[in-house]
């Protein structure tokens, strides 16, 4: 690590991780609750039932609290791009510019204009215009998410661009390739549906608390019904998009896929680990090696999940590093060589151009272009340093999937008890619904951990690792801002929870309608 301050890399990653994770505490509830409110308001406008108006207003209050506390927390991430990740920002600038500008102009203004009408419009604008505003707030907030997720998807699977060796920037060659890449489409759909599920759990969990306290039962049951139906549909869609995401990761980020399953040695007819416990088992080749102390598997399912073929070969970490001729897998060693050729060629190209040697510049440029695909590998000598944290990725993935499946059952049970039984008497189910709220946040964060820890060491897949993306600044300044963020965001989170709980308790004391 002679050329690089790894403390700076680690602190910059920790700081970005902290702010991104806190930001993501606020965002999913906004994305999902906005649609739930729009649905509730639609029922009110259609039926004229005053209770639906009260229900809508109550959830709007909680939405408003979450929106107010969470708004602009994402701007911190943009500060960090400019200060801590300047190499990366420059490298990707033209690709990120377009989606983020569209987000700023279109989605933000749509959202912020109509949110005022949504909150101030009761009795001041027509019911229909008010309802349209509610739907536009929901669509606007989800459009905001689209653009940032497109940018993230590009980092996981960079397409639609070409690298300009004269400016050291990637330039967009096809906007639609970036916007409609399968990774972007799937990431957007999977992320927003997971946000809908979280919001649905939030609604049924708080409604369950009302029922447990025997307060505002009809109010709570109606809220629960909307939450559970919305949540069930969202969960089904989330499982479908998750399934498709797995195949995409298998194709485009096979190392992440192997880490998600803790698969070191690839195999045909690969089983899916349902539950497993990993322990460290260092080898001379890989000191970070881990293996299962215990695992419960379903035969062939991983092969089917990856390639829709129960007999398909799924490469493990060792196959990717050592290569596997039989299955056409290029080894990390070869990729490292090609990466080094690309880096050297880029440097030589620049030098030849400065010296006015056009012939040499042309040769070096061609060499660079031929090997650019593996540019990022050239920073490494030991391929095992390009393996993500396997136990962390494995546990995060299985936590996310396990909780997602649990929610499917929760929604089904809630709907069943609402229609066929008395949910008020099913205290166990109400307790499960209530305690599902923190689980939803854990699953949501775990999902991002899979996406972001699993793709390490890449900031831009195969092209730029984190260690070459950071700015050359003093790591002590990063530690200071890390602490400031930790304090600020924790304060905001405490404020949100406190204000929300106050409002929930206050509403629970209102007499039944």
């Amino acid at each position, binding site marked *: 690590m002679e050329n690089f301050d790894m403390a700076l890399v680690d602190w910059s990653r920790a700081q970005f991780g902290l702010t991104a994770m806190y930001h993501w505490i606020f965002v999913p509830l906004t994305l999902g609750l906005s649609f739930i409110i729009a649905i509730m308001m639609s029922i009110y406008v259609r039926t004229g039932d005053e209770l639906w108006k009260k229900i809508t207003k109550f959830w709007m209050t909680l939405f408003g609290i979450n929106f107010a506390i969470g708004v602009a927390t994402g701007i911190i991430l943009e500060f960090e791009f400019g200060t801590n990740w300047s190499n990366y920002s420059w490298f990707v600038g033209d690709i990120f510019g377009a989606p983020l500008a569209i987000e700023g102009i279109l989605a933000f203004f749509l959202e912020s204009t109509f949110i005022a009408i949504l909150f101030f419009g009761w009795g001041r604008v027509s019911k229909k215009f008010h309802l349209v505003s509610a739907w536009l707030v929901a669509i606007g907030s989800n459009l905001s998410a689209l653009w940032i997720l497109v940018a993230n998807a590009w980092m996981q699977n960079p397409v639609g661009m070409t690298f300009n060796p004269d400016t050291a920037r990637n330039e967009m060659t096809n906007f639609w390739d970036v916007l409609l890449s399968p990774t972007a489409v799937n990431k957007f759909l999977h992320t927003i549906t997971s946000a809908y599920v979280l919001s649905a759990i939030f609604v049924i969990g708080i409604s369950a608390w009302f029922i447990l306290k025997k307060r505002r039962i009809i109010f709570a049951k109606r809220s629960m019904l909307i939450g559970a139906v919305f949540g069930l549909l969202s969960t089904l869609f989330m499982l479908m998009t998750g399934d498709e995401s797995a195949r995409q990761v298998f194709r485009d980020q096979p190392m992440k896929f192997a880490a998600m399953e803790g698969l070191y040695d690839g195999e045909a007819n690969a089983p899916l680990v349902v539950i497993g416990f990993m322990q460290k088992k260092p080898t001379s080749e890989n000191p970070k090696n881990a293996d299962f102390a215990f695992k419960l598997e379903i035969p062939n399912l991983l092969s089917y999940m990856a390639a829709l073929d129960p007999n398909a070969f799924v490469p493990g970490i060792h196959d990717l590093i050592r290569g596997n001729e039989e299955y056409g897998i290029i080894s990390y060693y070869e990729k490292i060589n090609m990466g080094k050729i690309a880096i050297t060629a*880029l440097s030589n190209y620049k030098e030849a151009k400065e010296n006015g040697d056009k012939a040499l510049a042309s040769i070096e440029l061609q060499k660079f272009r031929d090997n650019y695909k593996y540019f990022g590998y050239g920073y490494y000598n030991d391929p095992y340093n390009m393996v993500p944290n396997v136990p962390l990725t494995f546990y995060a993935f299985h936590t996310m999937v396990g909780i997602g499946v649990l929610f499917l059952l929760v929604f089904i049970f809630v709907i069943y008890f609402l229609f066929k039984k008395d949910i008020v008497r099913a205290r166990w189910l109400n307790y499960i619904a209530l305690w599902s709220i923190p689980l939803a946040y854990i699953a949501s964060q775990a999902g991002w951990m899979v996406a972001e820890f699993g793709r390490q060491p890449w900031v831009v897949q195969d092209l730029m690792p984190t260690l070459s993306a950071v700015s050359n600044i003093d790591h002590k300044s990063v530690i200071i801002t890390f602490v400031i963020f930790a304090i600020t965001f924790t304060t905001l989170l405490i404020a949100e929870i406190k204000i929300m709980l106050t409002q929930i308790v206050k509403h629970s004391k209102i007499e039944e309608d």
Partner: protein
Amino acid sequence: MYICYTFAKCPALSISMNIFRKILQFYIDGFRDMKVGKKLWLIILIKLFIMFAILKVFFFPNFLQTNFDTDEERGDYVLEQITKTNKEE
């Protein structure tokens, strides 16, 4: 060309002003009637102040913007950074 000097003589301008006044009144009434919202707006303002007046100014200068004058210099610098080999070992 007809030029409006007063609202009374210019119906289009008068209508626009009325719409503007209505929108303004809508926001004023909305803010006045807020309950929880007042506390939330206070939090938003404090948060934005911390972000833009403290963090952005003192802790988050744009590294390339502040250290280099032209895009060419910035490009050259980044190119130099990303072509440093043997970063890992």
